[in-house]
């Protein structure tokens, strides 16, 4: 079994012994990188890039097929009056609505992503998690967003956390696997870095900050810690792992701030939707509003763009 691979077990011992993350330093640097003034054409380019990286998401109990189709239409063509705005990267829904989204997105190049494994709490049996994943993949999901078992992680059971990721990874087939750490529930930056490494070692294609259902999400500090973990992992192993910021990114300013963090930590080659995603539901309209402002010189109103 790969779960008990001695190299993985040995590596777990190492990451528990890493020096602590400098909390004050991380937050200071992350905040500094948010103070950059991005204006005019640079701002327009940044907004277009952010839109192209969006995982436009709806994860509500009240989601219906009609609402998902509406969201898909918006994701494919976010602003008909501004054709230079690209499509979003993916539409992210619950497994039961994957087929609807897949059909609505057919031939558009926009991917279908699905949450799985007992999202958002992950407090179900491994069997149920695997079935959840298989269902989503069978319905045509191109990307799977799984949650780690925080219960196992907080109990110190790193092996079980990795086992679950490996087991899910085996069932995703060609679909990309994004592993949600739910950083708000991990307690510290040390844990965030530790969970990032566990997920990357277990084969995650992306690591993702949050479900969007917790008290906080992709704070600048958390993003920076995860991006640095990705950088260190890439330098050590040569494998590229993507990053998805989700939860609390609700303004253009916040979205551009995350992009600055990516650029300064990982470099220009990471500024693509292949490697970075922003998961959000409400940020798209603010991006469009700010873009329109740069074009017309007039601040608009929320009703200018359709609600998702």
């Amino acid at each position, binding site marked *: 079994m790969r779960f008990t691979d001695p190299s993985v077990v040995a590596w777990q011992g190492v990451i528990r012994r890493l020096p602590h993350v400098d909390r004050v330093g991380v937050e200071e640097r992350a905040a500094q990188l948010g103070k950059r003034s991005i204006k005019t054409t640079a701002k327009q380019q940044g907004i277009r890039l952010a839109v192209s990286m969006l995982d436009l998401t709806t994860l509500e109990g009240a989601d219906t097929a009609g609402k998902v189709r509406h969201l898909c239409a918006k994701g494919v063509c976010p602003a008909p009056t501004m054709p230079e705005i690209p499509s979003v990267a993916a539409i992210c829904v619950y497994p039961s609505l994957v087929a609807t989204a897949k059909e609505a997105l057919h031939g558009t190049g926009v991917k279908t992503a699905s949450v799985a494994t007992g999202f958002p709490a992950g407090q179900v049996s491994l069997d149920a998690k695997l079935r959840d994943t298989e269902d989503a993949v069978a319905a045509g999901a191109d990307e799977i967003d799984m949650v780690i078992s925080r219960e196992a992680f907080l109990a110190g059971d790193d092996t079980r956390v990795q086992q679950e990721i490996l087991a899910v990874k085996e069932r995703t087939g060609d679909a990309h696997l994004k592993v949600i750490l739910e950083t708000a529930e991990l307690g510290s930056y040390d844990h965030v870095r530790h969970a990032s490494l566990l997920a990357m070692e277990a084969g995650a294609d992306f690591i993702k900050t949050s479900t969007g259902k917790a008290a906080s999400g992709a704070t600048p500090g958390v993003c920076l810690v995860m991006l640095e973990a990705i950088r260190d992992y890439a330098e050590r192993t040569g494998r590229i792992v993507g990053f998805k910021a989700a939860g609390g990114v609700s303004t253009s300013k916040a979205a551009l701030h995350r992009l600055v963090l990516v650029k300064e930590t990982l470099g220009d080659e990471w500024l693509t939707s292949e490697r970075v995603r922003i998961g959000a539901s409400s940020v798209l309209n603010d991006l469009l509003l700010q873009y329109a402002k740069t074009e017309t010189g*007039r*601040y608009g109103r929320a009703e200018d763009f359709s609600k998702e």
Partner: protein
Amino acid sequence: MNTRLQVRKTYKLWIGGAFVRSESGRYDEAHGFNFPRASRKDVRDAVQAARKAAGPWAARTAYNRGQILYRAAEALESRGDGIGVTREEREAAVDVLLHYAGWTDKIAPVLGGVNPVAAPFLSFSVPEPTGVVGIVAPDEPALLGLIAELGPALAGGNVCVSVLSENNPLPGLDLAEALGVSDVPAGVVNLLSGRRRELAGALGAHRDLGAIVDAAGDRELSAELDRLAAETIKRVRHGDPATSYEDATTDALERLNAVTELKTAWHPVGA
């Protein structure tokens, strides 16, 4: 000899219920005090905060809004004499606020009602707030001139972003501190000090404003506001600065009307 150094106050803008410095970091000086010179971005932030507060404020009962305005008058009354404002002016301002506190639950019966129509319909009109109202306050009287415009807008269920007197902004900034300890919810009133032309222009150009009330008495600015309002489709009311309680209240209905939308519904009756 008294060697104590005076601790001088740094005045702040009032946006979204918080006392903040100007985003631009700029300051001016009046009466030996520093006060912020707001920028267009502060206007944007203020409109955003106001928009967020608009729904809940309009959804309150008229009775509750009246109570909150009455409480605001209490807070202003207990503030004592401030810099740049006479006792008479301050007392008149409190009275004007009280006057409009009384108006909140009378607007609907006065402006709305059942319309006499010669057809088998029940037709009725209901006044609704315009939404976010921009106010350009006059230079003098700084406090009364501001309250005379704030009062009707708030009573009508609107939220306000106001550009204060350019020559004498301290009474307006002081009002922020009084309202800050009253029950006025965050974002319902936003007060900005700075260069009137710059800020009023930004207000006029913002499309998320429903109306602009211009009491500055600046002809050139009025023309510019008319032009911007036409471009961004908003109501405009030009008025002279109110210099007394009577000035601010005898035309109450006109002031209320300027920041009110009338919704009329036709309902078939009989057969």
